[in-house]
């Protein structure tokens, strides 16, 4: 039990933060979770410091009264004693760890209390297990994101197993993903029966954990509320109290009603990409931000928001074009027009007074500067030192400096982290008032309240790409609220890549790696053999020059050796190539298998979201290009480098001065090719994006050719096609333009190494330092290694290409797989949807759907297109994971069972029927592999397929490719029916074809359907209401939610919406029939 009795505290020193607290009487029971809330400076943090003993042992001041935790007097005992029962987590993730590696930090508290090693090990295991920290173990803390650091901080106190946790604004610097994680951690702490005291501005994430909210105002406790009382407070009440929202769903949106329809673009970004080390951080096709807008940039930490901001300001090098106010500018020019208000505003205050700070390098007079300060409410502080101000005031000083310096574009990096509601609103108003003065405000933020309060647009980023850009209107507000409530994927940041590209490829090679090495070895011998003849010739020449007579007979062995070397060269080179190709193709197989495995685990939905062209490129072209690297680059490159190195050493042996000169020229050549490498790397991103676009466009064009011809829509599709191709051409040319000068240069440098050393050699000879015979030997050696080096450099040029391909491959492999388990499906075959929510990207398409489809009954899903019918079906077959809620078959959750199990229970007949390129017989047999021909034919008869199949040229043996063109949509679907009949799964999902043109076909269809559905649990996605009139249950969906449910009769009686839909459906039906008759 924590007890504060009549506690007064005031900070010593003149510029303390906040004024302390007065007359605090507070009792916190064991196992209780108490949230301290209130405005900035209300004394929340002081209260936490009183409990963890930092007051009075670290922060000086006047203390009256005492703080007791059970029998332990915090104010009197030493800090190290208190630390055994109180665990503290602080606001700033980057300043609260003491170690550099995460594991060391996790056990730090335990080590300090002197626990034995075994005990520490046990606690570490428990902490890692309970808080799910495994991916963060043994990492460099400086590589972690703020959220991850905060998790480690929580883990560190958790391992010390204190009775009480004191958390001082733990969420202020975190994104929503990290907030979700620490929420789970706090819940865990509470479940363990520990007392938790949290001081916090953001309270929405604590609503389900907190038992009691204590409201402080000006150092005095003025209110205590339960979670329910807090929830019941209206937004106005909260605003009055200076508190942030209790539920993100209730944040009011301050919609900007100006239209940006005709606004000129303030910022125009085309084909922007940015890489750091081996990984690509940004890959953006286009961003267009309108003039005078306030754009919020959202996305998880590490998605590239900050990098984008830095690139836009011209701070980080990038590739692509950025235009401000319509003119494309260089990095340097952008630096002059942009200003970033950093999260650590301390870093950007340089002067000794606020006024001075604003005037520094400003383009305005003193009066104007003072006016700006007054506008921002800083007039009273003009003479104060910026470092003595509060966080919010420092921030405003930085903004004032930006305004006075006449900056066009101001970027803010998480400006409201750690601000209370008043501070946040004030900042919002500030943004609005400066809106007309600056072209663009660009805000990186994790604060939904700020976005809804004052932003005009939202830019959503994911993994370095822009996934959405939308204005804040009614729909946008809904979207952003949803985004902040939805869970992000559970991935943690990657361990920073230290591996080189070549190392990575070798890793893929796996077992084949030794073969690659072997190949390299063989090729080295080959290459050495190719150089040796030059040496031999050198020796011969030397002999002649030294005055010896060379007869043919005497030199015959040498000439023989030259021949032998040539033969050896050919043999070893061939051998090497053979081995390396062997290794390469085996590796390709590995990679393809791995890719396929990964693709199978991934949500089918996201696989299908990729264009066919992209997938094809991934599977065949990109992987193919790795072959080049494995089979040629690595072994040949190694050989081509190794031999010149040996030759160089030989050269040193002959004459070190000349060798040094040669080395120098080679060095220049290398640095040049290094330039080329980086230049090439920069362009590579756009180059590949364009080639991907082109491929997709071509595939789309070819696929759509038929439609295009028929409907004569050549224009739009053709244009897209053309544009993709021109883009590709431009980029390819661009790339070559960058690289060609370098290619030419290094080509010439290398082939003329000899030329460079020629004059020096002569000089050395004149000085008597060099013997002519040595010189000639050196020359000949140079001739020998030149081509090898040149060869090698060619490979260096293509490394960026290959490495980029590897990256895109890895990205493809990187999607989060759907959750599966290995439980059997038990219970009956009913289907239960329980409060299911699902979002595609940040768009919620299913909003809390609950219903139950009984075993053996038919349930129809109806609704307008886009109401979520098909999505529900896709969720049921586990193409995607649900975001929230559960789908059960019998008693088993879909996430607990394997895809194979599920597949055995469900037959899904989709609208689009895919016919494999085999005979019709085999196509039907796809429903059940071991079915006999007779069974297949029986199924076909039931599905009313038999007749039309027999009319095909070869009956059941007709290849589907040939038959495909002769079959109508309805007939194809009946083949799918036959498959489903053959499969005989207990659950059938029918996605009804949209158009049946003739009645004959429809009748057959209906009969086939009756065949399949007899005795099964059936879900029909109906586009035509008449066909599901007799369903046991009809569920009417509207915009992702259930609008009404019941039988046809009930719905006709009760639901207007259903009646409307019914009428509409009938109408189109008639219209279609009529049309068909004409």
């Amino acid at each position: 039990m924590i007890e504060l009795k009549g506690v007064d505290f005031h900070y010593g020193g003149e510029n303390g933060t906040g004024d302390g607290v007065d007359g605090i009487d507070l009792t916190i029971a064991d196992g209780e979770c108490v949230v301290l809330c209130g405005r900035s400076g209300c004394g929340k943090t002081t209260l936490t410091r009183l409990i963890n003993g930092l007051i009075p042992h670290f922060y000086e001041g006047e203390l009256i009264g005492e703080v007791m935790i059970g029998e332990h007097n915090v104010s009197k005992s030493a800090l190290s004693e208190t630390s055994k029962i109180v665990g503290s987590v602080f606001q700033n993730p980057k300043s609260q760890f003491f170690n550099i590696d995460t594991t060391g930090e996790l056990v730090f508290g335990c080590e300090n209390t002197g626990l034995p090693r075994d005990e520490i090990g046990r606690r570490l295991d428990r902490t890692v297990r309970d808080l799910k920290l495994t991916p963060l173990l043994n990492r460099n803390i400086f590589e972690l994101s703020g959220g991850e650091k905060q998790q480690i901080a929580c883990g560190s106190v958790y391992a010390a197993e204190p009775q009480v946790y004191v958390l001082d604004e733990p969420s202020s610097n975190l994104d929503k993903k990290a907030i979700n994680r620490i929420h789970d951690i706090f819940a865990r702490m509470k479940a363990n029966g520990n007392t938790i005291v949290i001081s916090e501005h953001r309270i929405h994430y604590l609503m389900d954990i907190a038992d009691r909210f204590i409201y402080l105002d000006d150092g005095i406790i003025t209110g205590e509320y339960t979670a329910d009382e807090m929830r019941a407070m209206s937004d106005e009440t909260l605003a009055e109290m200076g508190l942030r929202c209790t539920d993100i769903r209730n944040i009011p949106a301050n919609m900007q009603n100006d239209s940006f329809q005709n606004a000129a673009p303030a910022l125009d970004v085309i084909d922007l990409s940015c890489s750091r080390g081996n990984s690509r951080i940004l890959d953006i096709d286009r961003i267009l931000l309108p003039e005078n807008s306030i754009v919020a940039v959202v996305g998880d930490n590490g998605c590239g928001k900050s990098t984008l901001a830095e690139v836009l300001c011209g701070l980080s090098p990038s590739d692509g074009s950025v235009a401000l106010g319509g003119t494309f500018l260089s990095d340097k020019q952008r630096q002059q027009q942009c200003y970033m208000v950093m999260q650590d505003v301390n870093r950007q205050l340089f002067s000794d007074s606020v006024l001075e700070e604003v005037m520094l390098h400003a383009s305005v007079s003193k009066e104007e500067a003072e006016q700006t300060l007054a506008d921002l409410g800083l007039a009273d502080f003009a003479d104060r030192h910026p470092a003595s101000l509060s966080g919010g005031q420092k921030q405003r000083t930085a903004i004032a400096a930006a305004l006075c310096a006449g900056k066009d574009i101001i970027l803010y990096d998480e400006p409201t982290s750690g601000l209370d509601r008043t501070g946040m609103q004030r900042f919002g108003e500030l943004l609005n008032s400066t809106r007309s003065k600056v072209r663009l405000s660009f805000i990186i933020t994790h604060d939904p309240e700020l976005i809804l309060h004052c932003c005009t647009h939202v830019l959503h980023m994911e993994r370095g790409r822009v996934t959405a850009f939308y204005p804040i209107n009614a729909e946008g507000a809904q979207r952003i609220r949803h985004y902040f409530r939805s869970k992000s994927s559970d991935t943690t940041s990657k361990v920073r890549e230290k591996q080189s590209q070549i190392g990575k490829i070798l890793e893929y090679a796996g077992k084949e790696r030794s073969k690659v090495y072997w190949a390299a070895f063989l090729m080295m011998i080959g290459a050495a053999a190719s150089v040796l003849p030059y040496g031999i010739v050198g020796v011969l020449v030397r002999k002649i020059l030294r005055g010896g007579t060379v007869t043919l007979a005497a030199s015959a062995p040498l000439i023989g050796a030259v021949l032998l070397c040539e033969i050896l060269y050919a043999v070893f080179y061939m051998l090497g190539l053979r081995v390396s190709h062997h290794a390469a193709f085996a590796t390709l197989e590995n990679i393809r298998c791995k890719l396929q495995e990964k693709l199978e685990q991934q949500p089918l939905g996201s696989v299908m979201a990729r264009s066919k062209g992209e997938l094809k490129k991934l599977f065949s072209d990109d992987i193919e290009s790795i072959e080049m690297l494995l089979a040629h680059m690595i072994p040949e490159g190694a050989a081509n480098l190794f031999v010149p190195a040996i030759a160089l050493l030989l050269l040193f042996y002959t004459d070190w001065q000349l060798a040094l000169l040669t080395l120098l020229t080679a060095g220049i050549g290398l640095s040049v090719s290094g330039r080329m490498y980086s230049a090439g790397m920069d362009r590579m991103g756009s180059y590949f994006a364009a080639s991907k676009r082109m491929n997709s466009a071509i595939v789309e064009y070819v696929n759509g050719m038929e439609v295009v011809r028929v409907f004569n829509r050549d224009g739009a599709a053709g244009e897209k096609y053309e544009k993709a191709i021109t883009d590709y051409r431009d980029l390819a040319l661009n790339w070559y333009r960058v690289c060609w000068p370098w290619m030419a240069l290094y080509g010439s440098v290398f082939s003329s190494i000899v030329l460079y050393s020629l004059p020096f050699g002569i000089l050395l000879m004149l000085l008597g330092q060099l013997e002519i015979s040595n010189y000639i030997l050196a020359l000949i050696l140079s001739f020998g290694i030149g081509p090898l080096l040149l060869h090698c450099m060619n490979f260096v040029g293509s490394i960026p290409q290959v490495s980029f391909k590897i990256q895109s491959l890895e990205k493809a492999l990187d999607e989060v797989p759907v959750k599966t388990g290995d439980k059997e499906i038990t219970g009956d075959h009913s289907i239960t949807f329980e409060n299911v929510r699902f979002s595609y990207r940040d768009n919620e398409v299913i909003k809390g759907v609950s219903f139950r489809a009984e075993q053996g009954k038919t349930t129809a899903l109806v609704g307008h297109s886009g109401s979520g019918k098909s999505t529900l079906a896709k969720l049921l077959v586990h193409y995607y994971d649900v975001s929230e809620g559960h789908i059960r078959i019998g008693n088993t959750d879909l996430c607990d069972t394997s895809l194979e199990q599920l597949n055995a229970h469900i037959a899904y007949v989709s609208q689009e029927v895919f016919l494999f390129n085999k005979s019709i017989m085999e196509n039907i047999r796809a429903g059940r592999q071991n079915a006999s021909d007779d069974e297949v034919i029986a199924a076909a008869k039931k599905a009313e397929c038999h007749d039309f199949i027999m009319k095909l040229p070869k009956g059941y043996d007709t290849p589907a490719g040939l038959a495909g063109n002769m079959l109508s949509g309805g007939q194809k679907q009946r083949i799918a029916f036959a498959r489903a009949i053959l499969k005989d799964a207990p659950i059938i999902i029918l996605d009804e074809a949209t158009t049946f043109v003739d009645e004959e076909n429809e009748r057959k269809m209906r009969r086939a359907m009756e065949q399949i559905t007899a005795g099964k649990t059936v879900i029909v996605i109906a586009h035509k209401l008449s066909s599901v009139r007799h369903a046991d249950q009809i569920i009417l969906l509207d915009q992702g939610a259930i609008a009404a449910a019941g039988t046809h009769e009930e719905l006709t009686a009760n639901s207007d919406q259903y009646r409307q839909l019914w009428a509409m459906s009938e109408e189109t039906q008639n219209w279609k029939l009529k049309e068909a008759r004409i």
Partner: protein
Amino acid sequence: MAKKEIAAAGASSKKLRTKELIYAGAFGALYIVLMLVIVLGTSMIPVLYLLAPITVGLVCGTVYLLCVLKVKKFGAALILGVLFALCACSNAWFSFVGAIAAALLAELVIKLGKYKSKMMYLLSFVAFNLNMACPYMMLSFARDSFLKRSVEYYGQEYADGIAKLAPTWIFFPILGFAVIGGILGALLANALIKKHFAKAGVV
């Protein structure tokens, strides 16, 4: 943000407490990073390399003074000196000892001012900055053994060449530079502390 410990708990004790040890270590990191940046940044130009005692003194004086003013006890300068010696002078024992001696001298100067006199604090940096001359001690003290080794390796002629490049007296101007750097650094630190840190209430 003035955060001082309460008078009762330990200001009266002259021993350094954990908190102050942490400050000293952190300032040590600052000192060393700044020194390395300057030395590596200027080592392209040999003359600037020899002038490093001045440039480093100028920049690092403020760091040193903030450190000793924040702790105001025996040991702050010494710890800083030890950290410096560990990072910059561990190539030769006499440099190491020299650097520590410089730090002790600085402690002595501060003690003479009874841990209160601002003048003495400033003066102590002049003593402290003598450590910047220590890495160069090798040029004088180890010169002989270095030359002997060169004789061993390359012969007398070569050793004479080296001897000409680095005369014996080179150490004394460097010592002078260290004093100049100390004075300049103390002056700049005084100005900056008055202008910024005192005004903002940090020390």
